[in-house]
């Protein structure tokens, strides 16, 4: 996994609440392998493109000032709905490295961490304030510093954010989580022994 430390980049505002993962990547692209050519095009596909494939000029990521955005600032409950990790893969393929929101869909939130994308939760008024600055100054940049847990707005204001210390460490180092967990092999094996004696019925004996 790609580590995340600090990032200064153009940020794009997305004002709609409850943007679900079906909208981030429609179902018909889910059978495509990760990193398939053109994967970035699947991102927000049905709102980004007209039926004939032409770009929808109003959509924020299609506007010249936001084309280089690596940060999205969204409204409440972004990434709700389906557990499809492809939503994060599509964001990543397009170049997004951080999503800032008042709240995020639970599984999407976890999926971000697993792919080197930083999810930042800010109070709703702070997120709304950021979005209006980004609307007023298209192409403005934000700086996210994960180590310091701060975010610097275009107007210079600094917001502190909370991040789970465990996830923070994983992101900073880009560590492989499976390898980390297998380091607890002794504890897992001990748990399984307790389970086998305490709740033997848990393992299906016969099938069908």
């Amino acid at each position, binding site marked *: 996994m790609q580590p995340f430390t600090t990032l200064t980049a153009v940020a794009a505002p997305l004002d*709609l609440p409850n943007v679900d993962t*079906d909208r981030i990547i429609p179902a018909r692209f889910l059978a495509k392998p990760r990193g398939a050519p053109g994967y970035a095009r699947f991102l927000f596909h049905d709102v980004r493109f007209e039926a004939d494939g032409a770009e929808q000029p109003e959509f924020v990521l299609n506007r010249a000032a936001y084309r280089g955005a690596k940060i999205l600032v969204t409204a409440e409950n972004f990434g709700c709905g*389906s*557990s499809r990790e492809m939503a994060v893969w599509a964001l990543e393929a397009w170049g997004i490295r951080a999503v800032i929101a008042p709240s995020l869909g639970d599984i999407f939130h976890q999926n971000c961490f697993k792919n080197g994308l930083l999810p930042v939760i800010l109070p709703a008024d702070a997120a709304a304030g950021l979005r209006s600055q980004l609307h007023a100054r298209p192409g403005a940049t934000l700086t996210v510093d994960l180590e310091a847990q701060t975010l610097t707005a275009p107007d210079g204001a600094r917001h502190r954010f909370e991040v789970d210390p465990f996830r923070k460490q994983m992101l900073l180092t880009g560590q492989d989580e499976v390898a980390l967990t297998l380091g*607890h092999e002794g504890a897992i094996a001990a748990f399984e022994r307790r389970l086998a004696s305490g709740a033997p019925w848990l393992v299906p004996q016969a099938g069908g």
Partner: protein
Amino acid sequence: MFEKIWARHVVTEGPGGHVLLYVGRHLLHEGATGALGRLAAEGRRVRRPDLTFATADHFLPTAPGAVATDPEIVGMVDGLARHTGAQGIVYFGVGDPRRGIVHVIGPEQGLTLPGTTLVCGDSHTATHGAFGALAFGIGSTEVEHVLATQTLWQTKPRALRVTVEGRLGLGVTAKDVILALIARIGAAGGVGHAIEYAGSTIRVMSMDERMTVCNMSIEAGARTGMVAPDETTFAWLEGRPFAPRGEAWARALADWTTVPSDPGARFDREVALAAGDVAPTVTWGTSPQDALPITGRVPDPAAAGDPARRASMARALAYMGLRPGTPLGEIAVDRVFIGSCTNSRLEDLRAAARVVRGRRAVVPAWVVPGSGLVKRAAEAEGLDRVFVEAGFEWREAGCSMCVGMNGETAREGERVASTSNRNFEGRQGKGARTHLVSPAMAAAAAVAGRFVDVRTLGG
């Protein structure tokens, strides 16, 4: 209950409130082929193939006799068969009558058990919480992690109790209860929480009904939803193929009776709902929270105080092609879909068939059973004939038009009365307009050609 199940599955504690949680059951569908492939590429084995079960549901076609031909879909499904075979995982695959929607067959096969943890790479995994299991959906990287370690790093969600008291009126179903709840607390109302459903209304519900309620917990943003196991649960589970038997059953039962919350258990939050206030419900917008009684009218964005809410309502109505003030009972539908992990079980099909019997569908209408065994059981009762005689299509088990991953989608602009769980933009196909309803309401819409209060249809 949630606390108890959580506590007994903690393997070890990590930093920042993270615990390594043991996974009692891991269910896979063809979306897991990628994770299995990555695991194999790293030379890792599945740690507990005996606790892992697989099926194919999302991508397979459901037209009678159809086989998948799209090379990407064939690759995924064949890959699942190959990897599960190599890893020694039981797979309910193509041609197996036990194949079906993962959340229908887990309980049906007796894989879902009270007091255990269960995960699946699918957001509707909370369905299994109906049995008093701690069940939640995970992403693809997490699937790989569970395959390799049988564990997950998790932080504990807060506990929210939803108490529903009283008797549901005639024609009012579990689906209406959960839609009414989501309308009340909002699509983000449960974020960060595990919901426990309690109260007299839930107690008298069948397992099929409890599954419908728990299924849509994610649409309220919750990580999971659950119902305390009781006699209804145990009676339903006894004798299921993979459920414990004989002495193991007795031991399991003794354990399961300790699972429910103790009287006086504390919850971080409480919500109460009166069953008598719930009516047959229809969604009008593009979020499951946009739900109203069938007797209502399409709301007016102008009446919304918050400008952001006003804008998102206006956008939803534009997408849905609806005008404020239109009575919901005057909205014509183009198509009906009865199916999905929310409402494709035998009782759902019976409820729809009761409405359909002796009538005729005036729009294209599909019935897609949740599993091969549900389909068989329905056919044994003659439900298939009721549907077919009324002009419905009786199809093979699968997810089908709930998500349209297999290409079974509604056309642009088509208005669908659907028993599924998501009315998001484009969920049932690009530009398709989804209204979520119960099976009885969907059947009523099929025969009336518009939404209609199923209570006014009569026997």
